[in-house]
């Protein structure tokens, strides 16, 4: 009987522990989602309700027209298109250039392979701030300032961290595949294109997702290189908006929601790749 009582006690204890853990999990979830909810809530409020104390969580009635008004005051559709153009170009550029280079380092023989790869790794350790001034000077000389070129050309010339990710992945593909293909008369190009790339889809997706995030959220690049308003991206468009319509917080929040939404939607579709990729980025340092 005493054994039975002890068993019941243990059971009650484990249920209590579970309940406690769920309470903690839900509290954490509230903390992590609260800013989003506040952003949504503010974006749907009429102007008088924004500056009311105590603040209401649920705007009654929700003022959906805030979105239309906010996104037409400044040409946000144009900023959206600009951002999309740059992001798509840069993701494709990264995929093409980094996979080529990674293939070279992972699959082709050369006396210089190791030395050059160490050089590539060491450039990853230099903080980007060291190169922004000379790069600006270079693009200024080329007459590229206030065009998309300083933002859209470099991705076609490889990005060391992505090259590193892809090279590590390519190394895990058995070399015997290459040898067999060569015996069958495959050229190096076809090994790259028809064998390695299809097998490397997960790694390529990770790179695409990271490239998308980095470019969509990029702030320093457009801030330095873009000055005419019709070439603005969403990130600097938002700061312009903030400067001009500081008092209209509802509009500002509506524009912020519109900027963040595409990322959140894509995140829910490609969660695994986001988490894997960003964990890798954390490891980079």
């Amino acid at each position, binding site marked *: 009987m005493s054994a039975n009582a002890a068993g019941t006690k243990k059971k009650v204890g484990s249920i209590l522990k579970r309940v406690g853990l769920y309470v903690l999990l839900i509290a954490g979830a509230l903390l992590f989602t609260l800013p989003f909810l506040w952003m949504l809530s503010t974006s749907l409020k009429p102007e008088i309700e924004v500056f009311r104390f*105590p603040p209401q969580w649920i705007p009654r009635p929700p003022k959906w027209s805030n979105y239309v008004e906010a996104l037409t005051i400044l040409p946000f559709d144009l900023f959206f298109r600009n951002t999309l153009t740059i992001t798509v170009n840069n993701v494709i550029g990264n995929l093409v250039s980094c996979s080529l280079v990674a293939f070279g380092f992972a699959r082709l023989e050369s006396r210089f392979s190791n030395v*050059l790869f160490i050089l590539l790794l060491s450039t990853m350790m230099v903080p*980007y701030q*060291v190169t922004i001034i000379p790069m600006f*000077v270079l693009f200024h000389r080329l007459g590229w300032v206030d065009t998309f070129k300083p933002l859209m050309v*470099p991705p076609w*010339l490889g990005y060391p961290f992505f090259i590193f990710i892809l090279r590590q992945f390519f190394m895990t593909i058995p070399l015997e595949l290459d040898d067999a293909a060569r015996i069958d008369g495959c050229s190096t190009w076809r090994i790259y294109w028809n064998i390695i790339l299809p097998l490397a889809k997960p790694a390529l997706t990770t790179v695409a997702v990271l490239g998308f995030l980095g470019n*969509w959220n990029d702030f320093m690049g457009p801030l330095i290189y873009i000055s005419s308003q019709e070439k603005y991206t969403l990130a600097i468009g938002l700061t312009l908006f903030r400067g001009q319509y500081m008092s209209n917080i509802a509009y500002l929040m509506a524009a912020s929601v519109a900027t963040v939404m595409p990322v959140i939607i894509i995140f829910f579709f490609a969660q695994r790749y986001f988490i894997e990729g960003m964990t890798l980025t954390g490891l980079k340092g």
Partner: protein
Amino acid sequence: MQSKSLSQSVGILQRLPKSWRKELQFFAFISPWLLGFIAFSGGPIIASAVISFTDWNILSTPKFVGLANYQRLVNDPLVWKALGNTIYYTIGSVILMTVASLLTAILLNQELRGVRFFRTLYFLPSVTSGVAIAILFAWMYNPEFGIINYMLYKIGIVGPNWLFDEFWAMPAIIFMSLWTIGSNMMIILAGLQDIPQSLVEAARLDGANWWQEFRYVTIPMLSPVLFLVIITSTINSFQVFLQPYVMTEGGPGNATLVLVLYLYQNAFLWWKMGYGAAIAWILAVIILILTLIQFRLAGYWVYYEGERRS
């Protein structure tokens, strides 16, 4: 005609020794990066060092001034202010982020139904970092109508003026970093899942309570991962720019002026290219030293498997 010359050149390629052909192929594949290295990485690194020895507003001809920029830098109170602020931000955010990501990782490591859903939810803010989020937090910190002071008011605390207060502006920016701990959390979670279950069971058999289990099993086994998280967050935090730029513009009273912001102002607002480059090099050297120091310290407290602590 053209196809003939093409086949000729292919013929020449084929007559090259095999090792040469291999080298050629290798260089063809890595050529995008080689070009990129020369134009956007290696070249600029050297150029940056040279620029830091000049007085140059980008339109004039650069004037060589030797070490003058570095001398000025040492005597510039704003450099010291910015350095102090950057260190303040780094220490504050790294401690908060590491503790918070460890705790959430432990919570998410529990075997509970639906825990994966919470993992996604906790990770979500990390993908949205950027201007929009900085603007959102500036609004949340609004002293009169912001949600943060409202919640403090609910529990009987009169909230400070946050971003408008010299004392509270930096803590406000530090607290914000708690929201984007997603990647650190996932790295630590992976580390937790790598701890052999046999060790945990052995500790429990020996009668260890949860604290002893945490202190003598989890922490030592996790130390390489924690170390890694601390290094990378320190390096990232040292380069903070966006939040102070968007939320406070370095103010009030330079309370949130950080190194990268000061570098940006010098180079791209006041066109002092030489001085900006010198600040960039100081930043780079500090980051390098930090990395080295942390690697040294690691020897004292990081426990690697198969090694004995001395």
